């Protein structure tokens, strides 16, 4: 199993290396075979590995593949070692499987792009880095993957590099996540300083042994790691980069900025859940940040004009749910939502990609419309994704995952009515903005005419994802409906169960409320956007709408607070003021030189006078005058 584990990671790396070294010289039809092929092999191996993992004698077991010693100095040791357990299995499944589907989709999507091999090499590198991230057995290696995915995200957002705006978005993404990463690496230093190891398993053991719950060190460590998680997962206050990141090609948005990378923060928190349990204050913060983010982003998603930006805000909002789950201690529920979200959000982005392509790079939803008839395949898959996102009861996977979170937000130890209220409001917003998109894009008057139809390489992955978006929820059914706990049972080896505190109100009631809310959102969307376009127009032009649309003005605030001062500082001192001292010394020397030059005037009488003065000078010194 260790060999398979290593191979899963190695294939995408191999793909990346081949494509980046020989990419320019390979025939064009070979490139997808290498690019998508390597991801496919990884996906295949993952399934084999998953099966053998599930069927092995100890299902809660762990597979460790230590490749080599990385660093060993002064007590600091780190290995290049992969560690597979239930949590990482879920992640690598999502990464390789969805990754593979998106690679296949890209074969057609990117077919005419001049950077064909470049695209696949980046994508492969991304899959590799993401796998490293979730398989790392120590935090340093995790950080390697963490930064690696950041790099790929940067490269892919700016993939169409000719457009300066894309470059700007790419840099924004990299820099903002890097801010979080820096907090995270300080967290690593803190952990190493006090617990003398970076191995995640040992760290968790040492933390429980050495740190009291609520101790300040644990709080700091958790807080710093949270910093990293916030950056990567685009949560408040570091959420501003994700909507801009949509500048990248749609498969990138689907894979990186929806399904996998942005959930790295969720993974990190789940992975170090011991630490967060030891720091209840931080855990509560996670929940609050999640709740706030999901509301904030929900409102923003509601007002977007750009299809992908709307989906991006939706992603931010959904990750907010995951954070909420983690924050209230429903670890497994958070991961479950991650998985389900990966399916339907990837699907939505892929569908959005198709829409944009067939409409010739049209992003504005108000210029779309009536596409239901033109591209029915896309409509149906999009509708399934949207339904799942809007948590349409019973039939969609999103319902089961989100319902679980809402239930725990109220009932879990760290939960409470306020968090639940935020969640349920968010749920309403979700179904509202989701179906706003559906109604505007697919119904109503025909906007831009599609010029072409998607091929099978694009459709098949969408169909598969659509299927998963529907059925994936059935592996974890609520207590009130079937009480199937395949997923959380599987997770229980790694993540602790939920501590319940508030079970007085029956779960079924919550489900009923959620159902109503979800349906109400859809109805409202129908009413406003399909029946009363005038109202929709008025909403669109309201100031508050624009405020939401701009992401609550965070960008402007950051711009004034950080960007402008830094640029100003750089501009005023471009030539390095410390150079003045050199110039000053040089000037003084020159001044002396000029003055002394006056004495060397070539006049004999002057020299004689100098001689005479010299004598006076000598006499005065020697005679002690």
């Amino acid at each position, binding site marked *: 199993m260790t060999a398979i584990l290593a191979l899963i990671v190695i294939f995408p790396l191999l793909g990346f290396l081949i494509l*980046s070294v020989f990419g*320019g010289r390979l025939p064009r039809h070979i490139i997808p075979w290498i690019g998508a092929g390597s991801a496919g092999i990884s996906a295949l191996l993952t399934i084999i590995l998953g099966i053998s993992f599930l069927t092995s004698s100890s299902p809660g077991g762990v597979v460790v593949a230590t490749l*080599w*010693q*990385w*660093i*060993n*100095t*002064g*007590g*600091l040791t780190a290995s*290049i070692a992969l560690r597979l357990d239930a949590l990482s299995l879920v992640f690598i499944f999502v990464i390789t499987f969805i990754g593979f589907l998106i690679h296949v989709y890209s074969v057609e999507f990117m077919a005419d792009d001049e950077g064909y091999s*470049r695209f696949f090499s980046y994508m492969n590198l991304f899959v590799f880095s993401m796998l490293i991230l979730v398989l790392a057995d120590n935090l*340093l290696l995790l*950080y*390697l993957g*963490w*930064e*690696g995915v950041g*790099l790929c995200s*940067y*490269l892919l957002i*700016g993939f169409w*590099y*000719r*457009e*300066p705006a894309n*470059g700007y978005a*790419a*840099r924004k993404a*990299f*820099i903002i996540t*890097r*801010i979080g*990463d*820096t907090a995270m*690496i*300080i967290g*690593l*230093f*803190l952990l*190493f*300083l006090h617990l003398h190891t970076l191995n995640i398993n040992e760290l968790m053991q040492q933390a429980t042994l050495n740190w009291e719950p609520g101790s300040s060190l644990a709080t700091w460590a958790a807080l710093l790691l949270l910093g990293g998680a916030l950056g990567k997962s685009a949560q408040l206050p570091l959420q501003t980069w994700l909507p801009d990141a949509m500048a990248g090609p749609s498969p990138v948005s689907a894979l990186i900025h929806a399904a996998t990378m942005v959930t790295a923060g969720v993974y990190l928190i789940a992975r170090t859940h011991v630490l967060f349990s030891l720091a209840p204050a931080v855990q509560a913060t996670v929940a609050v940040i999640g709740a706030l983010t999901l509301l904030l982003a929900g409102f923003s998603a509601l007002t977007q004009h750009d299809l992908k930006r709307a989906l991006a805000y939706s992603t931010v909002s959904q990750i907010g749910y995951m954070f909420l789950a983690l924050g209230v201690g429903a670890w497994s529920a958070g991961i479950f939502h991650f998985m389900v979200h990966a399916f339907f959000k990837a699907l939505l982005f892929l569908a959005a990609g198709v829409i944009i392509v067939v409409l010739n790079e049209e992003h504005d939803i108000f210029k779309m419309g009536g596409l239901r008839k033109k591209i029915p395949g896309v409509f149906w898959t999009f509708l399934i994704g949207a339904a799942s996102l809007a948590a349409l009861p019973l039939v969609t996977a999103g319902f089961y995952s989100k319902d679980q979170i809402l239930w725990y937000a109220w009932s879990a130890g760290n939960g409470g009515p306020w968090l639940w209220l935020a969640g349920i409001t968010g749920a309403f917003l979700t179904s509202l903005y989701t179906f706003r998109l559906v109604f505007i894009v697919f119904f109503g008057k025909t906007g831009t005419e599609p010029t072409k139809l998607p091929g099978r390489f694009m459709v098949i992955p969408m169909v598969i994802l659509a299927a998963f978006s529907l059925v994936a929820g059935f592996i974890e059914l609520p207590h009130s409906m079937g009480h199937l706990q395949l997923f959380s049972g599987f997770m229980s080896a790694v993540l602790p169960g939920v501590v319940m505190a508030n079970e007085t109100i029956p779960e079924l009631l919550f489900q009923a409320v959620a159902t109503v809310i979800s349906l109400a959102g859809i109805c409202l969307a129908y009413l406003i956007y399909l029946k009363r376009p005038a109202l929709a127009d008025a909403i669109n032009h309201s100031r508050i709408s624009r405020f939401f649309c701009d992401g609550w003005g965070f960008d402007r605030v950051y711009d004034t607070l950080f960007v402008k001062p*830094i640029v100003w*500082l*750089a*501009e005023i*001192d*471009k030539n*390095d003021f*410390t*150079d003045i*001292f*050199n110039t000053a010394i040089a000037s003084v020397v020159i001044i002396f030189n000029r003055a002394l030059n006056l004495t060397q005037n070539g006049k004999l009488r002057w020299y004689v006078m100098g001689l005479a003065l010299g004598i006076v000078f000598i006499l005065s010194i020697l005679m002690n005058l």
Partner: protein
Amino acid sequence: MILLFLILILLAGGALAWITGKWSDLLPRVISLVALSLDLILLIAIYNGQSAAGNNSWWIDYRVDWIPTFGISLHLAIDGLSMLLLALTMFIGLVSVLISWKEIHEKTGFFHFNILWILSGISGVFLSMDLFLFYFFWELMLVPMYFLISIWGHENRIYASYKFFIYTQASGLLMFLSIIALYFIHGRSTGIYTFDYIQLLGTTMAPTVAFILMSGFLAAFLVKLPVVPFHNWLPDAHTEAPTAGSVILAGLLLKTGAYGLIRFVLPLFPEASVTFAPAGMILGVIGILYGAKLAFAQTDLKRLVAYTSVSHMGFVILGVYAFNEIAMQGVVVQMIAHALSTGALFILVGQLYERIHTRDMDRMGGLWKQVPVMGATGIIFAMASLGLPGLGNFIAEFLILAGTFQASILMTCLACAGLVAATIYSLRIVQKVFLGKEKTTWNISDLSVREKIISASLVITLVYLGMLPQQVIDTAKPSVLKSLNSIEQTRSQNTGKPTGEASIWCDEINTDGASAKYLKCKLW
């Protein structure tokens, strides 16, 4: 003897290159390559021989009298740290010769003479175990460097070369003063007048005296490193030098400063170093942040890269004064990684300049389309510069910061801000040069085979250093521990009263001139 050969081969190679330069442009290049390869082979032989023996003291120790009147000897020795830096010297030397293959058409003989003599001076610095000899080599490398800048440099080369020479010379002289003072202090307390490093170790002196003497050494090393605010020579020198010059400056010359700190300052003045440590760390942080800020502001690509050196070298001094093994190992790795990554960036600038004859980033942009391979390497080197894990610089910076964290949390956190700053300026390079719209339509060719070999070798070494740094760490370990040992002892003594006789500077040993000396002391 083999150590002396290392230096002599370069000196002789340089002379030969100069002479043969009259007849052919090719001969000097080939001779330089041969001389450097020969040295590299010798080093590998030494390394392999050592691995078998595996002891912790000096691997080879060679000593003959030079000027016995003053206790000056030709004392060369090699250990892990020297080994690494020498190997780096030869590697960077080879790269410098290769990158100059097409860039330098004029006066090739003299050019290679200068290159090899700089390298021999640098090798001498890394090998000298006699302080006088050390200073000798320290100065020796300046003159050919000065020529390199002032003859083959860019527009403003004369100014830059003056600044470089005068800055380093001035600071070097202060160190020289300290060396001589140390010589006397040691001589007066033990009766042995010598410049020998090993004998001078453990010289006891009053804390103030030690601090003053250390300041002299620091002057030289901090200027060379360089540490803000003594860095002004660097951007000018780096910018104006020819590519090979910039690569050697950034890759090797700066490292002599770091080497000096580790090899000389800490072991010779442990107590004073402990006193200075907080200031040193603050200087490091200032360097990191201020260097990054200036780098961000530049529009001249080469100048930008030059300022990143200032920023990266801030990590070095930060790590040195953290006084622990992790940080110190980080410093060693940083010395190598920075040499490779910044050298690579300078090479990139050189390659661009050869093609489009400008260093102004405002005139670049969108070059990726024309030169994708160059763009790809450019991104890799920019990533190395911002400390992307997997490349050598990350290991270096991580170790330094992890070590520093044990010494000062505040400093580490501030230094970490440098990581973000590095991201900002590194991405700016990539964006301004390769991405975006084309400002001018250049018609240029991508990397040639020779250039690809250079870039690939740098990428591979960077990745190697990033993924398998353990060999470097193991090699440097004894030296690092040696350097830290004295500090540890000082700390364990808990800064009690110094055991040695407090010899005040004016204290007179010659009874003859006592009264006169007394008078002088009163006067001054």
